[in-house]
Each structure stands twice: as structure tokens, then as C-alpha cells.
């Protein structure tokens, strides 16, 4: 008891000291390096925006409004969205906005560049597996074959502001929408006078500004697919880092694990030997499309795409734990787990 009565004042002093210290850490409001952050639930995920400087709050509000606007345009489940209208038009032609047309055109282009690995027409197959609702099941081969018959990006008829889908077809911009929203939210931040910001769209990282206010680069982790924390860190300027991994959504049935990224060729979870694929570049929609495609393509296909492209870098983590990166990020990349590292060079 006596010990307690002696410890207590010491504890109280320490508590007071530490609370003073934490008060002092909070920067005064007039600081030009002031850090603001905001969050929004949209596009089926949790999005945070951190902006530095005096225009931060204004920028965050503009960015979140922009994301919410785009969600209304591109959501596959919102009955008011242009994508919902296209999916439920019963084969009729509908009018769409210029920016929706542009994103569909971009997805078509990525479909051909990735040799079909990116496919926005896969929605009926994804639904059958339950990945869109959480009501998971394993469709049999006949059902998958029949559903694959309803896909095919080449069946989309896209005019300037007109879109026609065959009656049995449904598209979903899920693989590019978040990335594109990142681009447009970054633009909204800049228009608000923000020079330095970071967007985290459910794990898609996009930065505004070559450095943080203190002059240091942005330090971005890449999730360790097999353990706790990060597998690697990357220092970037203004740009985008997007990872796709099988760990994001999966279910187990009869001892088998089924992961949410489907191979458009088989209609089944992609089995390419990769556990995660990260694309690093300048544009959100491009990196978003790439991360999914690289994951589906596997190491060999991803390397081929990288050699053909020349405008992105990548980090591939294979199911044997080995890590492959491209030469453009060699100096800014560090592993934080023990792993065999291979660097691809041109």
C-alpha cells in the first residue's frame, strides 16, 4: 500500500509530463506545413486524404466530393449510375457522359495491351463466385463456360457518348474506377491550391507533389502477402503505387482456397504463381489496370508487358516468397523481409 502511495505521485508526474509533451507536438494552426486529413466511404472501400498546407481542408473537401461524384457515375450497384443503366438496358443503346466513355475506351485499350488479362466484362462470372456479395460458392465448369459466353470486351459497342451492350452482358469498371478516381481527386486537390497530398483509396496510394513539406520523399509500404506489416518500402515522388493481391478477398471450401482475382480466360481464380503484383507509375487508372493484369499474367507475362511498355515499374511477389522488381525503382526500393530479390533490366 505504501509502495502504491509512493508510486502514484511519480506516475502522476510522468503522466503530466507526457501529456505536456504530446500537446507540444501538436503544431499551431498557422503552420504552412499544417497537415489535414479526411476520409470517405466510397467505391466499396475506405478512402483517406491527407493534405498539407493552408489549402488542405479545401482540397480534401474537393477531392472527396469528386470521388463521391464518380462513384455515382460508375457504381455497378447504384441504380442511378451510368454503368447500372448500361447493364440493365436490355440491349438498347444508352447515352453516357464523356468521362465514362473515356474510361471504357481506356479499359478496352488495356484489354488489348494485356492480351485479355484486364476484362471489364467479367462481372457475371465474378457474381457467380459470390465475390461481389460475400455469398461465396464454387460454380461448376458448365456454369462457368456458360457465363464466359456472356463476356467479351469486343462485344461492347461504344460511340462518342453512346454505349450499347448485348442483352446478356454486364460490365463493371471496378478494376479501373478507383485508379481513375485517384487521378481526378489528385487534380481536384491541385485545383484547390494543394501542392502536397496523399490519397489512400482502400490501399491504392496516389501522391500529389514530388516531396512532403519537409523535403523528403513519400515513403510507401507494400503489404507483406504472407505476414504482418510490409514486405518492402518504396520512396516515390509524385505518382501512384497500386497493389493487387489474392489476400484481399478469398474464401475456403472443402480445403481449397478461392481468391477474388479471376483469370478472364478460365473464369476461375487466377493461378499465375504470384501472391501480389504492384504497379508503380504516374497515372492511377493505368496502375490500377496494370496491378490486376500483372497478377493475372504471372511473372513471365508481366515481364513481357513491362518490356513492351516502358512507362511503369513493378514489384512481383511470388508464392515461393521471391521478389522481382524492375530497374526503375532499384534505388528507391528496400526489402523489409528476408527474400530472394531479382531485378529486371532492359
Amino acid at each position, binding site marked *: 500500500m505504501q509502495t502504491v502511495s509512493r508510486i502514484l505521485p511519480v506516475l502522476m508526474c510522468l503522466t503530466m509530463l507526457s501529456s505536456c509533451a504530446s500537446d507540444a507536438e501538436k503544431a499551431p494552426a498557422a503552420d504552412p506545413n499544417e497537415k489535414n486529413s479526411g476520409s470517405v466511404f466510397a467505391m466499396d472501400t475506405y478512402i483517406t486524404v491527407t493534405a498539407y498546407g493552408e489549402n488542405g481542408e479545401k482540397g480534401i473537401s474537393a477531392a472527396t466530393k469528386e470521388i463521391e461524384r464518380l462513384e455515382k457515375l460508375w457504381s455497378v450497384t447504384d441504380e442511378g449510375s451510368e454503368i447500372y443503366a448500361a447493364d440493365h438496358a436490355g440491349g438498347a443503346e444508352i447515352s453516357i457522359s464523356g468521362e465514362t466513355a473515356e474510361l471504357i475506351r481506356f479499359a478496352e485499350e488495356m484489354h488489348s495491351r494485356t492480351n485479355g488479362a484486364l476484362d471489364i466484362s467479367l462481372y457475371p462470372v465474378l457474381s457467380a463466385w459470390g465475390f461481389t456479395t460475400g455469398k461465396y460458392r464454387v460454380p461448376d465448369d458448365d456454369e462457368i463456360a456458360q457465363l464466359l459466353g456472356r463476356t467479351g470486351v469486343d462485344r461492347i459497342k461504344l460511340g462518342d457518348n453512346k454505349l450499347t451492350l448485348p442483352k446478356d452482358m454486364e460490365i463493371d469498371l471496378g478494376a479501373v474506377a478507383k485508379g481513375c478516381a485517384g487521378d481526378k481527386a489528385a487534380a481536384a486537390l491541385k485545383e484547390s491550391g494543394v501542392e502536397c497530398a496523399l490519397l489512400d483509396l482502400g490501399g491504392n496510394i496516389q501522391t500529389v507533389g514530388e516531396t512532403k513539406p519537409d523535403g523528403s520523399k513519400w515513403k510507401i509500404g507494400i503489404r507483406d502477402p504472407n505476414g504482418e506489416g510490409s514486405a518492402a518500402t518504396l520512396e516515390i515522388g509524385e505518382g501512384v503505387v497500386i*497493389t493487387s493481391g489474392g489476400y484481399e478477398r478469398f474464401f475456403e471450401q472443402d480445403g481449397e482456397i478461392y481468391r477474388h482475382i479471376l483469370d478472364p480466360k478460365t473464369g476461375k481464380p487466377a493461378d499465375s504463381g504470384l501472391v501480389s503484383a504492384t504497379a508503380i507509375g504516374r497515372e492511377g487508372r493505368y496502375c490500377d489496370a496494370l496491378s490486376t493484369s500483372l497478377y493475372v499474367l504471372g511473372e513471365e507475362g508481366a515481364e513481357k508487358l513491362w518490356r513492351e511498355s516502358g512507362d511503369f515499374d513493378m514489384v512481383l511477389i511470388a508464392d515461393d516468397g521471391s521478389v522481382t522488381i524492375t530497374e526503375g525503382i532499384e534505388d528507391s526500393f528496400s526489402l523489409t523481409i528476408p527474400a530472394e530479390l531479382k531485378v529486371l533490366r532492359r
Partner: protein
Amino acid sequence: MITAAVLLGAGAWCVCLMMKPAGDTVIISQDGKELYRLDMGREPDRIIEVEYEGRRNVIEIKNGEIFMAEADCPDHICVETGKLRADTPIVCLPNRLVIEYEERGLDGTAR
């Protein structure tokens, strides 16, 4: 003697506090509003219940780790997320609930 022991104890406690890895504070928030701020180094095992529009989330703290034990949401992605990791928040979208570490030592984690 007792004073010496107390000072030593307090000293050791200070060292412990300083050694503790940064980023041990977990924030539970709903619709962007902070509900709980937890120092995971000191949290006892306990259950926290949170309501949203009549739906319920049950958050459990056990052995210094935190996870969603139950949720009245259709998809249960938050429950399937398992224990909170430093780099990935536990998110229950339908109930607008987020459990995350305050400081991650990084500006962001691609995941």
C-alpha cells in the same frame, strides 16, 4: 530503500515506455468520428460493442490484439479480416466502422 526501489521501478517503466514501438495507438471510428482511442500496450482483454442504425459490431481485444468478433453486416469482410495489422485497417463498410493504428511509420501502404 523503498524510495530507491520506487525510483528504479519508475525508471524501468520509463525505459519500457520509450522502448515501446511507436504506433501502438488504435483508433476506432464511425463515419469519420473517433469513438475510441486505445493504447494497445495497456488494454486489458475486453469487448467493445458499437451500434450503427440498429446494427451491431462486436470488437474484441485479446492479449493486446484487436479484431472484429461479430458484425450485423451482410458480407462479414470485417470479421474475415482477422486481427488488426499495422498496415491494413479493419473496415466494416455497411456500418461505417474503421479500426486502425494511428501511426504507421509510413505515409501509406499499398495493399
